């Protein structure tokens, strides 16, 4: 074999791997010499946007990341927050947008695999999955193919692992036609003392690679431009990887068994940039070095060279640092689970990543610059010229429809509002026997066996708002996620987030990114929910058309007593229906404007963070006092849709009189999306207690009517505005997506 990977490289080669000239200069300065091919490849991937966050790092600094509950903030494989009793929640969200656009099933499946590894890498038992999905319009067969494939892929992988997929969100909007978004979130549970980090600790510790054999999958297309590398042409190299959930399940069980045995000093999954990132990040975090002989790495394909082995992104692999005496136990545990475990090297004190191939040094580079001292850019942010145009909205020119009952029906059947049952019935959401609020409510709730506690989980983002006003949209994404969690009775604790944007090198996109982050940061600050981690997915654009800026927020909250959880559904005829929060004449960015008037314009609804915080505190207090029968926030479709959804889910009607609310256009009253509002129902005996508490906590509180019969009626005084029986609304809402999917 000619040893291309030892030849020193030049700037042209660097450029062909995606490094820019200044980055090449920086690399020369770091090494004090020219890199060979393997070294260059390692830098090219680690200094890519995906691994180094070079265009988003500065903007991310706006996030608040600390708080008494935070045990681990950004910087590790997943964030960790304390939930009391010596327990913690480990969670993170990540995107798999590009692979899913090429091969929806496998792209989504391997996305789930990756995020699950990020969580058990920390030593935690994964207990729940969520996801946030966005596609173009379902009337297109291509979009249906993507949607069906992604959902099946998430199901295929998560169900096999036996981790319940308990929640998520799905949106359809033309901006995602060429760039679908697939974000997966995993939540794990751990006892504090078992927390493990991705650190290569202790000089002389052994590095054990376990799991799948390494193939040529996913070696960065851009970094593989040189045909001189081998006989395998780029064209034949599949861009997409096939996931093996069974292997992942074995890996998960074996790793957790080793965590319990307390023999792991540090552990890291092999995700993007494979062995290169796992080894260099583990060394960089611990301030140590590593030495590996990659000829020892078990391979699936013949004649793989060190370059390929270091850059392979084969799935379902983990790298462990363990004391030498523990190696036999580690290997025995691997064998028990039918896994290959291989001692491929050791931890050193050198600060270097030293790669050997059959004893010959093929790469030797400093770990820290490679892993964490990549280039950082401060891109230009400019408000796009169209921003002011799209926010302008002349409501006076928009007629109020005559038949508002029909409008409610259309909204309930809009795929963005309709029931997502078609999706979640494909997910095993009840395995592990802890899901006590199933998908369909504002937040999923899990009990924690052996305690009284519950966990509430939600992912949210209204990207139309972020498109119309990145700052407000970002803030609302956080507020809504927290509100959903609070509606279940849980106290919001912390967030993870996935920032899906276009190219940050375009000033208008960078503007969206920084503004959205600023808005999110303000909301996190105000609501006391710091950011513990996340992921950035940029370049979601085709031919200059970027997706709506989509900062997905994953929120975790805790209930002191899971028996006190609250759900969306009306429970009891005779219960009083009340609205918490204030209603304004706000139609900008609403689903109503889009569905009925085909407009995506206006300013999104205003958000008063102090009011939001008071509302959420009240919701938690009401739940703790067992004063609520149901709670549901007003989101897309506004008050009318919120009432209808509570009615549909409870199989009970309601008679609602809107006259206590401020007077305004009827469509705004019914379908406006004013923030910080929640429709609650409660037993008449609790009415005064709730009223007093709401008053004391400064939350506007009005009584709107009662749960009764099997018809939903909304009116103003004597005037009937909407009247429809629950069964027919339910049919529209439940059947809409299935209808699109099997025309």
């Amino acid at each position, binding site marked *: 074999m000619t040893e291309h990977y030892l030849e020193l490289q030049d700037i042209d080669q660097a450029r062909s791997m995606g490094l820019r000239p200044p980055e090449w200069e920086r690399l020369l300065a770091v090494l004090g010499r020219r890199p060979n091919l393997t070294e260059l490849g390692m830098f090219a991937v680690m200094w890519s946007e995906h691994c180094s966050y070079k265009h988003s790092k500065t903007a991310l600094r706006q996030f608040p990341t600390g708080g008494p509950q935070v045990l681990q903030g950004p910087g590790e494989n997943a964030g960790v927050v304390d939930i009391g009793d010596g327990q913690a929640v480990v969670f993170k969200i990540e995107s798999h947008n590009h692979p899913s656009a*090429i*091969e929806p099933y*496998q792209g989504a499946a391997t996305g789930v695999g990756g995020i699950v590894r990020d969580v058990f890498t920390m030593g935690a038992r994964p207990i729940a999955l969520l996801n946030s999905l966005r596609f173009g319009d379902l009337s297109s067969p291509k979009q249906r193919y993507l949607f069906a494939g992604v959902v099946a892929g998430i199901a295929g992988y998560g169900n096999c692992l036996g981790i319940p997929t308990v929640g998520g969100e799905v949106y359809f909007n033309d901006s995602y036609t060429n760039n679908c978004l697939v974000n997966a979130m995993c939540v794990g549970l751990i006892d504090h003392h078992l927390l493990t980090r991705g650190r290569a600790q202790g000089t002389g510790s052994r590095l054990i690679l376990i799991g*799948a054999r390494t*193939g*040529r*999958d996913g070696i960065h297309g851009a970094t593989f431009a040189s045909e001189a590398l081998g006989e*395998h042409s780029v064209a*034949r*190299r*599949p*861009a*997409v*990887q*096939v*996931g*093996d959930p*069974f*292997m992942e399940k074995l890996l998960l069980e074996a790793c957790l068994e080793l965590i319990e045995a307390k023999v792991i000093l540090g552990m890291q999954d092999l995700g993007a940039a494979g062995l290169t990132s796992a080894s260099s990040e583990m060394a960089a975090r611990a301030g140590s070095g590593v030495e590996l002989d990659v000829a020892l790495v078990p391979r*699936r*394909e013949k004649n793989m060279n060190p370059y390929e082995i270091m850059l392979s992104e*084969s*799935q379902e692999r983990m790298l462990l640092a363990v004391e030498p005496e523990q190696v036999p136990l580690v290997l025995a545990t691997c064998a028990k689970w*039918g896994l290959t475990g291989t001692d491929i090297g050791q931890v050193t004190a050198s600060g270097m990543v030293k790669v050997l191939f059959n004893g010959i040094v093929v790469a030797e580079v400093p770990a820290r610059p490679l892993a964490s001292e990549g280039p950082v850019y401060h891109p230009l942010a400019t408000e796009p010229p169209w921003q002011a145009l799209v926010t302008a909205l002349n409501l006076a020119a928009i007629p109020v429809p005559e038949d508002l009952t029909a409008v409610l029906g259309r909204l309930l059947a809009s795929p963005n509002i309709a029931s997502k049952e078609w999706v979640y019935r494909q997910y095993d959401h009840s395995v592990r026997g802890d899901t006590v609020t199933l998908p369909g409510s504002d937040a999923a709730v899990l009990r924690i066996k052996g305690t009284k506690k519950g966990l509430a989980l939600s992912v949210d983002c209204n990207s139309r708002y972020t498109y119309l006003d990145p700052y407000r949209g970002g803030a609302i994404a956080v507020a809504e996620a927290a509100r959903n969690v609070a509606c279940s009775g849980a106290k919001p604790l912390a967030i993870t987030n996935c920032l899906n944007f276009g190219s940050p090198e375009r000033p208008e996109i960078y503007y969206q990114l920084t503004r959205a982050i600023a808005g999110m940061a303000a909301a996190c600050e105000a609501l006391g929910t710091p950011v513990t981690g996340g992921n950035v997915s940029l370049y979601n654009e085709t031919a200059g058309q970027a997706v709506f800026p989509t900062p997905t927020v994953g929120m975790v909250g805790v209930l002191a007593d899971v028996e006190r959880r609250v759900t969306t559904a009306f429970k009891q005829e005779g219960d009083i229906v009340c609205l918490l929060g204030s209603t304004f004449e706000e139609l900008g960015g609403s689903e109503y404007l889009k569905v009925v008037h085909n407009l995506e314009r206006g300013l999104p609804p205003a958000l008063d963070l102090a009011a939001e915080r008071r509302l959420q505190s009240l919701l938690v207090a009401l739940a703790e006092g067992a004063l609520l029968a149901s709670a549901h926030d007003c989101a897309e479709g506004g008050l009318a849709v919120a009432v209808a959804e509570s009615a549909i889910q409870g199989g009970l009607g309601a008679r609602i009189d809107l006259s206590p609310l401020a007077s305004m256009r009827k469509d705004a009253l019914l379908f406006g999306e004013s923030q910080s509002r929640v429709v609650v129902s409660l037993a008449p005996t609790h009415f005064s207690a709730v009223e007093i508490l709401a008053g004391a906590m400064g939350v506007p509180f009005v009584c709107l009517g009662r749960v009764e019969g099997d018809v939903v009626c909304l009116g103003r005084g004597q005037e009937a505005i909407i009247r429809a029986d629950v069964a027919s609304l339910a049919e529209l809402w439940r059947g809409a997506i299935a209808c699109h999917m099997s025309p």
Partner: protein
Amino acid sequence: MYKAKIYVTLKEGVLDPQGQAVRAGLISQGFAAVEEVRIGKFMEVVVATHSATEAQHLVREMCERLLANPVIEDYTFVLVEVV
């Protein structure tokens, strides 16, 4: 009428978890001689046409568009006339 026998296989280099698991299963049952297992699909599609050329053309298009996933799979097929 023609019947197409279509073989869809994973592209070389693409991981075949099924094949791996079956290989391990066969070996553990004493089939030590098993070197490699790859698992794909075998489809039989009957097309109502009298022209072999048209059948050929149709089946190729079906494979390209629906039956095989060009990102990870290859396909081949043979046609036999049926009555």
